Structures are given as C-alpha cells and as structure tokens.
C-alpha cells in the first residue's frame, strides 16, 4: 500500500474518475481522491479542473484532509479567483478555532492564496493572530505579513501591520522575534529607502538575547540583520562581537558564515592594538577550516567567501595552507576554488610545499584544472621572488611533457615571468622556441610572439620565426595580429638591416588589408613614427616597460570592502555587488564597512601621517582601481601596474584619453591584450607641471574660442566653524573656500581658546575626490597666544592624490600644533573647482550633449529664485559657469551652459527660466553622473547669494 497507486491511470480518463470520487459520500474515498489529486500535482499535471470539487471537501474535521485541500488551494487559487472566495468562510472560522495549530494553519494558508479579493478578508484574522496568546500563532502570523506585503504592499501599510510587526521584535518568545526580523528584512528588501529595521542599541540588545535561544534558521536571520547595524563606537562593536562569537561553533554552516560576516564587519572598527582583536582573529580560523570538511556544495560557497576573507585579512588563514590542498576526487568546482586560495596564501614560508602540490596537479586528468595549476605556478613565481627559479624549472619540466595544453599555458605564464624579472631567465628561450609549432591558442601564440619580439637580439632566427607567423596573418585572431605587428617593429628597430622587407610587409598587411581599426591605427602610428623619426620610434617602442605587479587578480579594495558586507550571500559567490546582478536593481542598498573610530591613540588613520611634511605631496602612486578618477573618466583600467611615476598628471588626463590606446600600444605594453586603454598612457617625457594642466595643448583644440574668465571672482560662503574648541583642546578653526582668478584658497581663522600659547602649526589633507592639497605650508608666524585670532589664506592645488570620498565633496583635514594633532572633515561647494576656461564652443556643446547617454541626465528644481535669465547668467558667469547659448521657447528662457572642473570633467547644463515663476529647472549632463547633484548644490549656493 504505497502512494504510487495514486499515479495509476484508468482508461476512462483520470479527471472524470477523480471527479466522481471527490463527490463520493464516503469520507475515506474522498480522502484517497484528494491524495490522488495532490500526487498528480506534485509531478506537474494540471488538475485545476477539479477546483470546485476539491474545495467542497474543505469543511471537514479531519485535519489531514483539511491540510491536503489547503495544499491544493495554494497551488490553484490564483487560476480560479472566483471559486477561491468560497473558501474564505472556512478560513475565517478556522482562525477562531481553539486549537492553535488550526489557527496558525488557517492564517498561514490564507497568506499563500495570492488572490486580491481574499486578502481583504485576511486583514481582520491576521490582526487577531498577530496578537494571539500562543507564540506559535504569532510567529506564523509574522511571516504572513511578509506574504501579504508581497501581494499588496499598500494594504499592509494602510492597515498598520508594519508597526505591529516592529513591535514583535520585542516579543518575549525568541522564535517570534526571529520570524519578525525575517519578515521585516524581506519587506525591507523591496523598500530600500524605508527605515523598517530601525536598529538602535536597545533593539540590538533584544536581538542578541533572542539569538541565543532561537532555532538555527532564526539565528541566520538575526545575524544577517545585525550585520546591517553600525555600532556607535569600538566598545559597542566589541561587545556585539563577544556575544556573536559562540555562533562560530554552530553545526549549521550558514549560521557560522553569517557570524563570520558580522565579525569581519565589526572588526573593522576595533583597534588593531587591542588584545581582543588578535583573539578574534585566532577564533575565526577554525570555523572556516571546518566548513571545508562539509559537503562539496557547502565547501564551494565557503571557498568563494574564504577567497574574499583571505584578501581582506590574510593573517587569519596564513597557517592553514594544507586544508586547501586538492583531493583528486573533489568536484571540479571545488578544485578550482581551492587552487585560487592556495595562490593567495602562498608565501616564502610555504612555497616549497605549494609548488610540489601544483606540480602534482599539473599531471591530473581534468584539462581546466591542469591549465589553472600551470598558471598558478607562474603566479607563484611572480608573487614569491625566491621561488621564481624553481617555478621556472618546474615549468620547463612541464613543457617537456609535450602535452599540448600544458605547453601553451606554460608559455603564457613564462611571458609574465620575463616581464617581472627581466634579464634573468632568458636562457630558456631556446626551449620555448622548440615548441612553436604546437601552439594553436591565440593567447599562447601571442605570448610566444611577444617573447620573440622582446628578445629578438638574442634569438638568431627571430626573423624567420616571425615570418613563419606572418604567412597566415589574416587567419590569426586580432590579439595575435597586434602582437605580431609590434614584435616585427621591435625586431626591425633592433636589427634594421635584415628585416626591412619584413616590416614593410607587416605594415602593409596591417594598414591596407585589414578591416580592424585597432590594427590599422596601430599600423599607421608605427609607420609614421618609423618614417619621420626612427630615433623617437626606438625610444617609444623599446621604452622600458612598467613591471607587472605581484597579484594580478585582486578584487579592487572598494569592491572588496563592499563584498565583505555581503559575506554568505549570492554576491559573495559571484564576487559582484548585488547591484550588478539582482534583478532590476530592486532593493539594492550599497553597504560599506564601518569606519574605524578615530580614538586619539589610533595611529592607523591615514590623516595621521607626519603632518609637518611638505604638504604639496606629489601623487607618485597610481591611484587604486575603481577610484573616482577611473570611474569618472571611464577608463578601462588594467590590472594595477607598479611602474614609474607616470601618473603624476593623472588628474588632467581627461582630454588625453583619446590617444591613450594608441600611445599605450606604442609603449609596447602588450600584456593586457589588444586594445588596452591603459592608465599609464602618457609618455614619460611629458613634464608634470603643477600649474598648467598638461593636456592644455589638447584643450586648446577643443575650446579655441573659450571666453575670458571673469575676473570678479566667484561666490564666497561665510566662514563656518569646522573644528570646535571643545574637540581640539582649545583650538577653534573656522573657514571657507574661495576661488579667485584661477586659484583656490582656503581661508582659515584660527582662534586660541586655551590658556597656553600655540605654536608649530601644520596642515595636511587626506586624499580626496578632486586631489585638493595645500600648495604651501600653513604659515602662522608668531605663537598664537590665548584668546588671539589669526586669519590665514592657504593656497590649494588640485593635483594631489585622488581617492573617491563619500560624499564626493568631503575633505578630511589634519591640523597639528604643539599640543596635538586634530582631525576634522568639511564639505566644500563644488563651484570652487569650476575653472576659468570652462566655456564650450556651441557646436562642441551640441555634439557633447548628444553624445552623453540620456541616463546620465539629472534634473533638479531650484526654488525661490526670483531672478530673470539675464541676472542668472551674470551671476553664474562670475562663478565660472558660462552660458553657451540661449533660446526662448513659449515664453520660457532656456540657457545652455557649460562648466569644467579642475580635473577636466565637463558638465553641461540646461537651465529653464520662466518669467514670473521663482522656480528654475536645471538639467545636468555629465559623463560622470556622480558629480551632478553636487553641481546642483553649487548652483543653488551661487544663485541664492
């Protein structure tokens, strides 16, 4: 007697038969019939035709039958909304049943019937159940609110269910708390702006108490909710961490990982000197290791997360290398992830072991895995210098195996090793050349060609080798073609006599016979270089290449920080922020790690660098990927390259962008593939002068008729107190920013409210969005005696280091005197960054306006500004916002305006002025839409003063 009997069909037609049985008088027969219906449903058969008959069976005392009918209703009510109404009465009655199980069942099922008409009837019973005396009913009702919200959000808000749900967070029963949190989290996800889970120390305390007592699933909900909270100081962070750590020993891996998330996030706030900090670090390792002994699916998710954790805090797992060693019967997805982490953990201490393992893996069966293992050997060589020699010899051994894909991978990584350690391992070139014929993948061919071109002087038959590639030039992929072109030009520059013909041939192939614009352009550039100035060509093409950095595939720091907040979620599996893949971007809130609390002893914060140092610090480090500049210019940043300090002029590079790709190719920096618009583009020869933007020549091309900037100077805001005396041991600083005749100044007023004199003043800025930095030291000549005030104008430059701030116009400042170092941050109005040559030519304006995609357009209202268009225009002009054109449409004046920021970003504006209406409409278009709202604020400030 098994349920499989329900699947047998009769000749007459199943539905017909079932209908008869459902209407039978015998209870037992009815139940059997309903079971048959359910069985058909589970395998996806459509039994919706039986709807009225099944609903008729609903009024019964038999709980099993009732449950079965409910199951059916949930599946099919939507297709038969009118019939579903028939069921309402029973539900309402059941919600009053003395048995809590039945009350809960009724309210639960009602919520699952996604029919609008039913939801109206649901409200009253639900309200009662939310206040039910039995916690089982309350916790079921909590979830029901989430269900209802999904069907009809407005109804839930109107009926005040959200408030009731919030009250349940303080319920006495931990299970009810957990379900309320879960329901609220789910609702909050579809309303990112609503402040549903308003966390404060009291509610946090309640959650932490419930955490200890609720089920494993409830713990996950509560921990995920805790992770969204930002403690007010490091002490609170520590106390939450202490109460969360026991969860690391939970048997449920999801609980463990959620706990890890909370700890990783709050750790950010703890000072590293704290004993507790190191204790916590130690406690994090074992649970992560334990996750790796679970089922492979769990291992996979754990490994993806460990990958993030290892990048953020490598110290946690640095001794645990061995657990990441691959077992031969691990599923392939686990193997590949383990390999990734092994490389991240590789260090001088364990490199011998790692290499031995990798060599073992390189002889396995699975092709993908073997390839990755070979690549990993190369990455080890680049990461741990001491091991490079051993890695190279291992790779040579592998090349000897002659296994086609192993050889190809090995050659690709050897190319990188050559770049990292120039003039060290070139003796192996001969061996590589032997394998030329077996290469059939573009990447390997390109790598080999690069090697031949780069070391042409050491390879006797380099010309023959390259010539052999040239024969099938048109069948090669673009990557190989580009590489071949560059390699032959290199060869020509090194051995001009024998290879003239070859270079002619490749140039004509590239420029005349190719359809690929990249290839053609590169060909032409070489051609012209070679024909006009071979010496310059040599300098450009054979220039010293920037070294490649150790780790090429690190996640950029800002993204990493965001992902740490998403540990244990899908985002952490894909290593992408939810905004990148959650459907429609609905409910996505950017999360960020909490800032370390700036307690006075913390020497960690960047502002605390020696403040007396010359303040006009040059940017000699290439800003990290993903910083503002990258975002704004939309440059295709390659992997971080630690090269010569080329980026000094990075801030003015905007206009040069056009040439970036070409110049880059000239540099012979081929490692990034074909059209790498690399960041290190400008030739090193261009001097990085402070005052004149280096792109000025190009700028002139764009705005030949740029109007003379008005000399009257722009709007100056009144001074505001930036640093109250209370916080700075008696030093009060107030100030403002001004822009006059092309230069930015920070007008400071220092007041000594302490009882002793102050001396030795110095100032420094943290890196900021627009590279603002003091252009001169802070000069306070005499000691500042008590109750004295001095006014200082500090000139600023905008060529300092760049780092995206939140908000964009945030500036963090450190001021030092003989007493201490003080920190404060202030917001500046963007108009101080509007440069004098910000007038765009009409045609240019039109073209640019069209060129910028519409989604970059932002619209704002400026209220209470009773000026006519003339006055508006004059006022804005004095702050370097230039009116390019004017049009009158239906009585409204349309002003088309342009402005340019110090870093070369153009902002185009359309301002609509309606006579008699004090509101102005402002539309802004910019390639970097982030700045729009700040430009709008600047407009407001200028117009209203």
């Amino acid at each position, binding site marked *: *007697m098994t*349920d499989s009997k329900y699947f047998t069909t009769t000749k007459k037609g199943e539905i017909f038969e079932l209908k008869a049985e459902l209407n039978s008088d015998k209870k*037992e027969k009815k139940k059997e019939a309903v079971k048959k219906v359910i*069985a058909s449903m*589970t*395998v*996806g058969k459509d039994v919706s035709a039986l709807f009225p008959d099944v609903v008729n069976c609903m009024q019964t005392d038999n*709980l099993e*039958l009732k*449950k*079965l009918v409910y*199951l059916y209703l949930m599946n099919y009510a939507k297709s038969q909304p009118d019939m579903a109404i028939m069921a309402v009465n029973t539900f309402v009655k059941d919600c009053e049943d003395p*048995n809590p*199980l039945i009350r809960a069942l009724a309210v*639960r099922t009602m919520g*699952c019937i996604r029919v609008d008409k039913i939801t109206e009837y649901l409200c009253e019973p639900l309200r009662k159940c939310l206040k039910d005396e039995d916690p*089982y009913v309350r916790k*079921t009702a909590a*979830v029901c609110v*989430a269900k209802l919200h999904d069907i009809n959000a407005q109804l839930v808000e109107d009926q005040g269910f959200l408030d009731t749900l919030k009250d349940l967070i303080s319920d006495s029963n931990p299970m009810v708390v957990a*379900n309320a949190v879960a329901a609220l989290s*789910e609702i909050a996800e579809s309303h990112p702006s609503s402040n549903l889970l308003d966390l404060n120390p009291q509610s946090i305390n309640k959650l932490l108490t419930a955490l200890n*007592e609720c*089920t494993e*699933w409830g713990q*996950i909900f509560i921990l*995920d909710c805790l992770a969204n909270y930002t403690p007010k100081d490091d002490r609170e962070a520590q106390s939450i961490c202490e109460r969360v750590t*026991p969860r690391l*020993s*939970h*048997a*449920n*891996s*999801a609980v463990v*990982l959620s706990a890890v998330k909370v700890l990783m996030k709050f750790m950010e706030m703890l000072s590293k000197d704290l004993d507790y900090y190191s204790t916590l670090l130690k406690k994090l390792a*074992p*649970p992560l*290791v334990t996750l790796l*002994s679970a*089922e*492979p*699916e*769990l291992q*996979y*998710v*754990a490994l993806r997360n460990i990958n993030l954790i290892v990048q953020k805090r490598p110290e946690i797992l640095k001794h*645990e290398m*061995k*657990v990441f060693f691959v077992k031969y*019967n691990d599923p*392939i997805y686990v193997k590949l992830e383990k390999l990734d982490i092994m490389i991240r953990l590789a260090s001088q201490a364990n490199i011998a072991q790692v290499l031995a*393992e990798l060599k073992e893996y390189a*002889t396995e*069966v699975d092709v993908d895995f073997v390839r990755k293992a070979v690549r990993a050997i190369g990455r080890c060589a680049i990461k741990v210098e001491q091991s490079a020699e051993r890695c190279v010899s291992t790779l040579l051994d592998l090349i000897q195996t002659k296994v086609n894909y192993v050889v190809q991978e090995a050659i690709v990584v050897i190319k990188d090793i050559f770049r990292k350690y120039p003039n060290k391992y070139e003796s192996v070139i001969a061996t590589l050349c032997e394998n030329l014929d077996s290469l059939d993948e573009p990447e390997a061919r390109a790598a080999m060609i690069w090697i031949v071109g780069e070391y042409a002087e050491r390879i006797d038959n380099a010309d023959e080798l390259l010539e052999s590639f040239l024969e099938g030039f048109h069948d090669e992929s673009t990557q190989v073609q580009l590489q071949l072109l560059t390699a032959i030009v290199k060869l020509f520059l090194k051995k001009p006599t024998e290879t003239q013909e070859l270079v002619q041939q490749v140039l004509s192939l590239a420029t005349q016979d190719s359809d690929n614009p990249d290839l053609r352009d590169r060909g032409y550039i070489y051609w012209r270089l070679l024909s006009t100035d071979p010496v310059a060509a040599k300098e450009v093409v054979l220039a010293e290449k920037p070294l490649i950095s150790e780790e090429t595939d690190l996640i950029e720091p800002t993204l990493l920080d965001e992902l740490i907040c998403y540990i*244990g*979620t*899908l985002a952490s599996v894909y290593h992408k922020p939810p905004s990148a893949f*959650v*459907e429609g971007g609905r*409910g996505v809130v950017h999360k960020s790690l909490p800032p370390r609390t700036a307690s006075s002893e913390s020497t960690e914060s960047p502002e605390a660098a020696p403040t007396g140092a010359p303040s006009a610090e040059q940017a000699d480090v290439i800003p990290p990927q993903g910083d503002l500049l990258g975002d704004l210019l939309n440059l295709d940043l390659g992997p971080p390259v630690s090269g010569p300090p080329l980026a000094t002029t990075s801030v003015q590079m905007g206009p040069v962008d056009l040439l970036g790709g070409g110049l880059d190719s000239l540099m012979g920096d081929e490692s990034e593939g074909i059209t790498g618009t690399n960041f290190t583009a400008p030739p090193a020869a261009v001097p990085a002068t402070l005052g004149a933007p280096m792109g000025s020549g190009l700028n002139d091309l764009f705005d030949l008729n740029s109007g003379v900037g008005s000399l009257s100077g722009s709007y100056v805001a009144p001074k505001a107190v930036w640093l109250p005396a209370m916080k700075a041991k008696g030093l009060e600083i107030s100030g403002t920013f001004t822009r006059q005749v092309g230069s930015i100044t920070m007008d400071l007023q220092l007041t000594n409210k302490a009882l002793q004199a102050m001396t030795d003043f110095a100032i420094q800025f943290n890196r900021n969005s627009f590279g603002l930095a003091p252009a001169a030291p802070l000069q306070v000549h005499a000691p500042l005696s008590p109750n004295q005030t001095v006014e200082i104008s500090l000139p600023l430059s905008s060529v300092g280091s760049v780092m995206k701030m939140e908000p964009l116009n945030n500036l963090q400042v450190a001021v030092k005197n003989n007493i201490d170092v003080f920190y404060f941050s202030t917001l500046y109005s963007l108009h101080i960054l509007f440069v004098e040559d910000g007038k765009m030519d009409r045609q240019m304006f039109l073209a640019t306006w069209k060129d910028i995609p519409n989604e970059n357009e932002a619209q704002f209202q400026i209220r209470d500004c009773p000026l006519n268009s003339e006055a508006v225009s004059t006022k804005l002009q004095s702050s370097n916002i230039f009116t390019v054109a004017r049009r009158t449409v239906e009585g409204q004046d349309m002003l088309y305006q342009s402005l340019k920021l110090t870093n070369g970003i153009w902002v185009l504006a359309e301002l609509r002025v309606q006579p008699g209406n004090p509101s102005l409409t402002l539309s802004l278009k910019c390639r970097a839409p982030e700045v729009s709202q700040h430009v709008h604020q600047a407009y407001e400030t200028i117009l209203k003063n």
Partner: protein
Amino acid sequence: MIHSLFLINSSGDIFLEKHWKSVVSRSVCDYFFEAQERATEAENVPPVIPTPHHYLLSVYRHKIFFVAVIQTEVPPLFVIEFLHRVVDTFQDYFGVCSEPVIKDNVVVVYEVLEEMLDNGFPLATESNILKELIKPPTILRTVVNTITGSTNVGDQLPTGQLSVVPWRRTGVKYTNNEAYFDVIEEIDAIIDKSGSTITAEIQGVIDACVKLTGMPDLTLSFMNPRLLDDVSFHPCVRFKRWESERILSFIPPDGNFRLLSYHVSAQNLVAIPVYVKHNISFRDSSSLGRFEITVGPKQTMGKAIEGVIVTSQMPKGVLNMSLTPSQGVHTFDPVTKMLSWDVGKINPQKLPSLKGTMSLQAGASKPDENPTINLQFKIQQLAISGLKVNRLDMYGEKYKPFKGIKYMTKAGKFQVRT
C-alpha cells in the same frame, strides 16, 4: 527566500515539484540541464547556477538532484543547508532516500515539505517535531489508518516547538533507560609517492542515541579536552559551560542525534594507521605495465585494521589488468577503468598484496597521469586522535540509566599518490 524545489533524477526527469510561493514553471530547470550536460559527471554540476530571473541552488545526494529556486538575495549556505536537511529528513522518515521511495510516499513527502517551509521561511526542521506533526509511515499504521479512518497527521501542537528546549518533546517514557555515545573519527589524508604525509586531518563526531525518561540533564567530560579546539555543537549544548570548564552539559534530544563534530587540524600530528607500498610502472615501448601494491599497518595502537578496500582510477590507456591478490577479491572495470580490491582484514604477519600486469593500448605513449589510490578501512575501539571520554553524569532524574561509549576510526578521504 526559497521559492520552489524540484527533485530531478540522474536521467534528467523532474519527478517532484513543490512551490512555497507562486508557481515557477519547470522550464526553469532547463538551465540546470544545460549545466548538467556541460559537467561530465553528476558530482561536477556547479551548486549555484544563475538564470535570467532566478538562481538555482542544488545538492546531489543519493543520485538525486535537489534543486531549489530562489529569486532574491538569499544566503546560499542557508539554502544548501536546508536542502541537506530535507534529504536527512526523508532518510529519517523512509529509511532510504531514493526516487522509488519518494514516489511511493509522495503525499507524506509533500506534507512534510509543506511543514518544513512557510513562504520560504523554515518552519519545523527538527525531525522529532516533524514526526509529531506528520507521522512517518509504518506498515502497521497504514493498516490501522485504513481500518479506523484515522490519519497520520497529528492534530496537536508539537510540544517542543516553542519550549526553551525545542529539540526535546515532553513526556518521554522508557522502560529501559539508556544512553549510548559513538566517538567516530575519520582520517582525511594525502600521502605522497614516497609514503610521507602531505596533509592529514581528523574529522570527528560524537553521535548519540539517548533514550531517557523525562527531562534528563547530562554532562559529559573528557580526559583530554584540549584536543577539541575546533568544535561544532548541537544546539542543546550549553556553550558557556564548555568555554569555562570544557564540559559538555546538555538536555539531550530524544533518540538519535549528533552531539558534536570536531576537527583536529593538519597542524597537529595525526597518526597514520596504514601504509601502502606500490610499484606501478608503464614502459614506453612495451604494451605491458607492472602493477604491485601491498598494504600494511603502521600506527594502530595494537588494534586490528578491518574492512580495507583499495580503489584506484586507472589511466585511460590501460586496457585490462591481470592481477592476483594474496587475499580478498578484486575487480577491474575496463569501461570506467576502475580497479577495486576488497582486502578485508589486515594480518600483520602476512601482509595482503595485489600483483600482476596491465595491458596497455599498443603503440600509445605512456599515460601522463599516475593513478591515485583511494583507501577505506575501519579500526574498532580506537579514536586515532586519542580522545577519551572521562565520565557521563545525569542530573534531574532519579533513575540510573545504562551508559555506553564506543570508539571507531575510519578512513575519510584517504589518498595515496603514486
């Protein structure tokens, strides 16, 4: 939260679907089938598969894929843990978890799934609570139900559901009160060609079978609790007590449960109880290869090694093998190239060995990869880490229970490279 669940067998048929929110068309599984096709073996199907509107999270157990469909950002571990829990529950209910059994009990399965999740939120996943709500099918009950018309759905609210000890029901009564604990350790190890250990770690568990009347409060202490520095507990264990005194104090669930699992990491020295001597050689010219392996005991603390099974995936180039074992039986499947040798018990006086020749594809070059040897074995009455239970005490009840402790060491993923 979890939207739907599909059960798919290895031939790619969806044989059960359950939806906790609106119905998701089963065509969503097409993305899963694509991934399944791409992966050469069922084990290699990636556990997280994105589709344009949903995410598919799957686990593969008992030759069945359990595929959960989610739509919003849900912790994947939460889903995967839940799926494993579903499998465990089925196993608990029906003894085995297989396609025919699930089909035979489809209504119970459906009822159970409905109780486990509500709107995608876990509702009751503890098996003792579930069993009070939906009674597991037994032959007797089926007969009784048919005669009396009673049901296998409980109509009382399970008592444990909301108490402070949700894992235990009240009013438990036994005539024989007993508590058994099994300390089971699995060694995961990789041994290299020369016989030295590359990595070795121990995954240990203490499984319990407690049948005690009333509300007993147990404490379990160890001779050497310092070994346990990486542990995961059943929710019943009082964590504070463990932190301060290194004593396990708990009110046990009724019946079988896993009290704790622990991990002795690769950094500690792990004793390796067996060794394998091997000589597998392929020669370039000849189409014959030599094969010889011997298994022997190493650090066994005087206990016997039993249930030894040696398996190895031979390279594709091996056509057949002609071998003679000194004991046990061996098989070689020329299609899958899987060699399996059931050795049985190791006699230290006369070590078991397997010798012979392999015939290779004529003319082919020698295989690139070396076969890895997989070892299974069991050692009774030994916890290889040295963990020992000191004593078990019971408070809160008056009677004297019968207590028992058993130790066992097993091979987990024990691999020898050649």
